[in-house]
């Protein structure tokens, strides 16, 4: 078994070996190294063909037209292009944008920038289960709303929003709907022929492709317009200039192709692993799942272990590669903003860990991880004054703590 055991697939995935070998074919003199924009010779034509094959693979997974796919450097750039691009293009209609408090920073910081430019942004608070409900979006809509940006699947808690329903009400009001889907393709169905989504951001490295490549879906019917954020050679129909990185694009295409073929089985397998893991720790006292237990992607489990602090827990779990909801390493001592927005109290937010399971996780990995987690939580509870107080029947919320 390779240590530490990798249980952080929501952060990034290893590249699937099938993807890596396809990518390697696009680099050297012997391979497909040409510039896809070169129109005057075979090297360029072959590279262009590879790029277009990849575009088709990406489109097929999400049931879109390949002409609706714009290559970017990743989901962060896609979010920037979608939100700034649409806001700038449609600002004549209004300057109000709706998003949520638990979006990825790529969305939140982009919205902050637009606020500095004079746009007004409403940040919806998800319900306790981590879901932003369509009626919340409907209530926040105004005459001057031009854009709604919500994530499909949350990166920390894995909870799924009802994108189809929110799309309907955006379309009714002719409001542009952007979805950050960095975490969902290959895990749950995306059907853009059915879902009324105008713009959707994708990343390759969350789905066993390489880092540094992503895509933005830009709907053709009804046509969505964007103001380019990157100017240059007019690549990608003028929406995103820059020489196309053939090897990255081919990697993303292959990753999406494999996902389409294997996602049904993979979802079942990953869910079984998550349930196997949870069944081995759920009998411990004061262990809580953050976010909806049902409406979530198969590979994610975000758990709070009350009375132990996340960072020390991670320190105990050095054979596991996982991430913590506590950001104690930052000077601010702020726990996860996502968990806080769900109304999880600060203490439980500090005590949370995110386990994410994926393609290369084995049953043995999960069993070892569960054993290690139990051991570490028990050890740290022995060290915890809060655990003592809980055991003595003291209600921690009644104590006046001196914040520091």
């Amino acid at each position, binding site marked *: 078994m390779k240590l530490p055991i990798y249980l952080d697939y929501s952060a990034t995935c290893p590249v699937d070996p099938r993807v890596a070998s396809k990518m390697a074919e696009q680099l050297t003199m012997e391979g497909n190294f040409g510039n896809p924009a070169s129109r005057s010779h075979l090297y360029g034509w072959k590279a262009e063909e590879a790029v277009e094959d990849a575009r088709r693979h990406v489109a097929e997974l999400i049931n879109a037209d390949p002409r609706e796919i714009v290559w970017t450097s990743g989901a962060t750039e896609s979010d920037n292009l979608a939100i700034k691009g649409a806001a700038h293009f449609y600002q004549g209609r209004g300057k109000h944008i709706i998003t949520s408090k638990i979006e990825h920073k790529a969305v939140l910081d982009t919205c902050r920038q637009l606020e500095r430019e004079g746009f007004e942004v409403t940040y919806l608070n998800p319900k306790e289960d981590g879901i932003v409900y369509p009626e919340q979006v409907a209530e926040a809509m105004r005459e001057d709303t031009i854009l709604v940006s919500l994530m499909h699947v949350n990166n920390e808690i894995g909870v799924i929003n009802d994108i189809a329903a929110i799309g309907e009400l955006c379309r009714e009001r002719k409001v542009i709907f952007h979805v950050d889907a960095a975490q969902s393709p290959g895990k749950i169905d995306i059907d853009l022929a059915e879902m009324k989504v105008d713009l959707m951001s994708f990343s390759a490295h969350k789905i066993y492709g390489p880092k540094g490549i992503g895509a933005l879906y830009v709907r053709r019917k009804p046509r969505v317009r964007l103001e380019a954020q990157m100017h240059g050679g007019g690549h990608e129909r003028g929406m995103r200039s820059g020489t196309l990185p053939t090897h990255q694009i081919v990697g993303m295409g292959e990753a999406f192709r494999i996902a389409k073929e294997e996602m049904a089985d993979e979802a079942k397998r990953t869910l079984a692993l998550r349930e196997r893991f949870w069944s081995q720790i759920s009998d411990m006292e004061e262990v809580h799942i953050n976010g909806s237990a049902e409406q979530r992607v198969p590979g994610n489990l975000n758990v709070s272990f009350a009375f132990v*602090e996340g960072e020390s827990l991670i*320190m105990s779990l050095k054979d596991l590669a996982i991430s913590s909801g506590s950001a104690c390493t930052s000077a601010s*001592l702020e726990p996860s903003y996502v968990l806080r927005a769900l109304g999880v109290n600060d203490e439980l937010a500090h005590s949370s860990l995110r386990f994410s399971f994926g393609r290369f996780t084995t049953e043995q990995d999960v069993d070892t991880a569960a054993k290690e987690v139990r051991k570490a939580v028990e050890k740290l509870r022995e*060290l915890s*004054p*809060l655990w003592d107080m809980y055991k003595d029947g003291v209600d921690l919320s009644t104590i006046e703590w001196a*914040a520091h």
Partner: protein
Amino acid sequence: MAYSDKVIDHYEHPRNVGRLDDKADNVGTGMVGAPACGDVMRLQIQVDDNGIIEDAKFKTYGCGSAIASSSLLTEWVKGKSLDEAAQIKNTEIAEELALPPVKIHCSVLAEDAIKAAVKNIREKRGEEAEQAAG
């Protein structure tokens, strides 16, 4: 992030973990921090008739550096007088454990904890007035 060997040593083998009877006349308890901030320390000292700390116990909810800071502190205060213990500075703890800047607050919390424990035992022993007068 990388922890120093001393932090790891204290974290993996914490010294003097436990609890003393906080109702006892010769036990001072200092509880500082807040769960919302991600760390809470409880430091307890047991004092002999001459005002020398004969035992110390701690329990800490917090990161590895917070646990190490309080563990180290229990080692340092044993055998010290209350005055000496109250003079331990957070900078000494931070230096001994090679804490990085983002973890300095852990050593500050440890200093607060020993000061609070000393204050508590002094109150029990009726030394507050004496202190103020002195």
